[in-house]
């Protein structure tokens, strides 16, 4: 088990709350916190901060795209990707699924890859 000074422990707070410490480091971290009120308090406040960031309400504008931009983009989509005439009309309502996180909810069809796609728009 690793032993930490307070200053070292504070520098590892992100790795700890994100569960990225290896086992000896995590045990040393928790052992230190059990005996050190300032560090326990610091880590608790650090956690509260991260929690608060994840639960910020965003009621300030711009909440979303303006209607103008939205219709511009839909028109651009129609112009660039005309629908083949033979395909039948689809239900316009996308399937609903419960979301675990409001911002990041697509199913990952592929595991994270070492070499990822280059976006086409990235010309320089």
């Amino acid at each position, binding site marked *: 088990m690793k032993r930490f000074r307070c200053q070292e422990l504070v520098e590892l707070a992100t790795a700890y709350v994100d569960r990225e410490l290896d086992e000896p480091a995590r045990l040393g971290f928790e052992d230190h916190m059990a005996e050190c009120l300032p560090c326990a*308090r610091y880590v608790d406040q650090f956690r509260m901060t991260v929690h608060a960031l994840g639960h910020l309400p965003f009621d300030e504008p711009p909440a979303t795209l303006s209607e103008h931009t939205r219709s511009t983009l839909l028109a651009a989509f129609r112009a660039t990707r005309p629908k083949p005439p033979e395909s039948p009309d689809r239900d316009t309502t996308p399937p609903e699924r419960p979301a675990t996180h409001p911002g990041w909810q697509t199913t990952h069809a592929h595991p994270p890859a070492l070499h990822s796609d280059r976006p086409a728009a990235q010309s320089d």
Partner: protein
Amino acid sequence: MMSGMPDREETIVGLPTDDAVVAALRAGDEAMFAAMLDTWSQGMLRLARSYVSTSDSAEEVVQDTWLAVIRGIDAFEGRSSLKTWVYRILVNTAMKRGARESRTVPWSSAFDGDGGSPHDGARFRDADAPFPGSWKEVPAAWPAPEGEILASEVRTEIAAALAALPARQRTVITLRDIEGCTSEEVCEILEISPANQRVLLHRARSAVRDRLEEYFETARRSA
């Protein structure tokens, strides 16, 4: 399709798998494109806003990103997730725009502008003092109820702390803690190493925590 619904942002619309979405877009399925727009644009605007100086600029960045997606979807090979691919286009578009507005320094200049560790020295005893590396002063306790931290004044403090961060820290903390991306996704989007990602995130979180500490301290003294 959902225009005119006042609660469009509250409508949680899940998207099917990347493969299904990409196939639909390539086939000209406008409903699928609209669903993507409505599901992702809000988070994209928040991220874009961290690079550019006005909400109008942010909206233009997001619009340009979607236009690039429409044009480039045939080139998507599925080696990263679709969202990572879209967000990488967004970050590149936003950085170019931000550079024109001189709001941001180029990402490639790495960590020059990010300052030192937030806890260097000051709070801890020197190496030659008794108990080196331990706290000089115990951090003050914060108001206990969890609800307190989401009070509107606190949210204002958090927003100010985020706005004051160097651009790269702001991007990483926005993606990780506000948008809920994994560290792997952030590394892919920003093309940085896991170690760099963690350093940037830690500095950003520390700065936000320190801001709240100052706020609660001031509030206690004036109480």
